[in-house]
């Protein structure tokens, strides 16, 4: 009969086990601690000016402490809205194409979207500036910068991300679901649209939210496209955005505005958070009906 007493080998295993468990635990704690520290720091610094007037007023140059960032919030939200409007249809439809078609063209498209994904955001901003804003400004001096152009820049950045998620999520849908629908005599397009896509919906929405969160903080492409603004303007002209405001306040010589930079950062993070929660809520509600 095997002895139940501890042997050197068993002892060694137990020590190793404990060691690795501790190591994993420590690493997890470090990762969470960094995140926690960032959030806590942001909260502590940002809470000073986190009051209603901060969200309902425009910047006040005479008395900065009374000013707000209403126009930056509205600007960011509309720019992100445009980015979503561009990237969701293009990204999802090309993602479907990636998942369903195969052949040379498909491989080329896949490779090119990977390249697009790797292009630094500032280059995309520069691209929009070169093909859109500069030509316009040459014809109409003093004009050209617009919220729409900024939305287009961020939208282009989101396309490969949305496309990739759609492609991956569609691949996760089991063949059996396809079969079940096709066996009813359902055409392929109808199966995709009403059976396969809905069952991949949650993953796709999550992917879109992640992509949105990623571009929400982009500053570089906005510098060339929306320019920034001290006032509330229409999106057909220069508008302000949270990352631009953040940069402006952080590099300002006024200590009040320096402090407001933190509140702006906190606002940006909250908006992303609210959008994510909203998306979760929407997908959950959709599933129940």
């Amino acid at each position, binding site marked *: 009969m095997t002895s139940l007493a501890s042997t050197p080998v068993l002892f060694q295993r137990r020590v190793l086990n404990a060691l690795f468990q501790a190591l994993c635990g420590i690493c997890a704690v470090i990762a969470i601690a960094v995140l926690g520290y960032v959030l806590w720091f942001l909260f502590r610094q940002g809470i000073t000016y986190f009051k209603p007037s901060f969200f309902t007023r425009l910047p006040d140059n005479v008395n900065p402490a009374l000013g707000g960032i209403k126009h930056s919030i509205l600007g960011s939200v509309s720019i992100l809205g445009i980015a979503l409007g561009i990237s969701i249809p293009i990204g999802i439809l090309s993602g479907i194409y990636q998942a369903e078609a195969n052949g040379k063209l498909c491989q080329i498209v896949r490779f090119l979207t990977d390249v697009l994904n790797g292009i630094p955001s500032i280059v995309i901003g520069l691209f929009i500036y070169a093909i859109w804003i500069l030509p316009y400004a040459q014809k109409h001096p003093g004009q050209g910068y617009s919220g729409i152009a900024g939305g287009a820049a961020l939208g282009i950045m989101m396309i490969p991300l949305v496309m990739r998620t759609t492609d991956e999520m569609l691949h996760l849908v*089991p063949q*059996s679901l396809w079969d*079940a*629908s096709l*066996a*009813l*005599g359902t055409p392929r397009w109808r199966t995709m649209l009403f059976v396969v896509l809905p*069952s991949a919906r949650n993953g796709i929405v999550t992917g879109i939210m992640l992509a949105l969160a990623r571009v929400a903080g982009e500053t570089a492409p906005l510098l060339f496209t929306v320019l920034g603004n001290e006032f509330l303007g229409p999106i057909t002209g220069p508008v302000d955005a949270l990352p631009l405001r953040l940069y402006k306040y952080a590099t300002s010589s006024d200590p009040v505005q320096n402090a407001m930079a933190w509140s702006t950062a906190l606002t940006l993070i909250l908006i992303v958070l609210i959008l994510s929660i909203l998306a979760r809520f929407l997908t959950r509600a959709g599933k129940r009906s």
Partner: protein
Amino acid sequence: MQTTPCVTVQNVSFWYGSNQALFDINMTIPQHAVTAFIGPSGCGKSTFLRCLNRMNDRIDGSKMTGKIELSGQDIRDRSVSVEALRRTVGMVFQKPVPFPMSIYDNVAFGPRTHQLARGRALDELVEKCLIDAALWDEVKDKLKSSAMALSGGQQQRLCIARTLSVSPDVILMDEPCSALDPNSTHRIEELITRLKNEYTVIIVTHNLQQAKRISDMTGFFLRGELVEFGSSETVFGTPARKETDDYINGRFG
């Protein structure tokens, strides 16, 4: 027993790439009867079943030769649309796969696709299919809730209701009870026996008792060949071939 032929199969062979899965199958499946296919795992029962509604079309590199006729019409004829064929030859799978939508929408999906009914007529059609599939009493109060929340046995009956919803002539069933408890199995067997008044049912099963209980005709497959095909009484009582006898008496490896 009525013996109008419903499906006639002539010299059907099937390949997955270079791997031949079916060898020269010939049979005539009668209308409004239950036909069962039995045989060891991997012998090609599912492959054959999927030939009957052309579900194998999608598999890359697959090839079929021979001829399958449904009520006298070649199902691979150019004039036949796959969608129309699959509507006429419905299929129930081994694993129940409800669509990610409500119970009602699951059953209404097919009729909506083929524009068979709408409004009140659709409600009535859904109700009729759920009654036929012996599921109505359990779900009539929660038609709007997700089909994913049903039990495995209920899901399978939902899938049967969904198949009935487009009024097929033939229903193919690939081991429909293998994931179910004895009680659900019993209900589905009853259901199949009732269905044969209106439909031609073709079922693959590993449960020999089940095949014997519910089927009128039985086919025994072995290594891609149809070894024996005849009335269930003959196949289970006095099989003509030794392999069949060995298999149904459990003397087979």
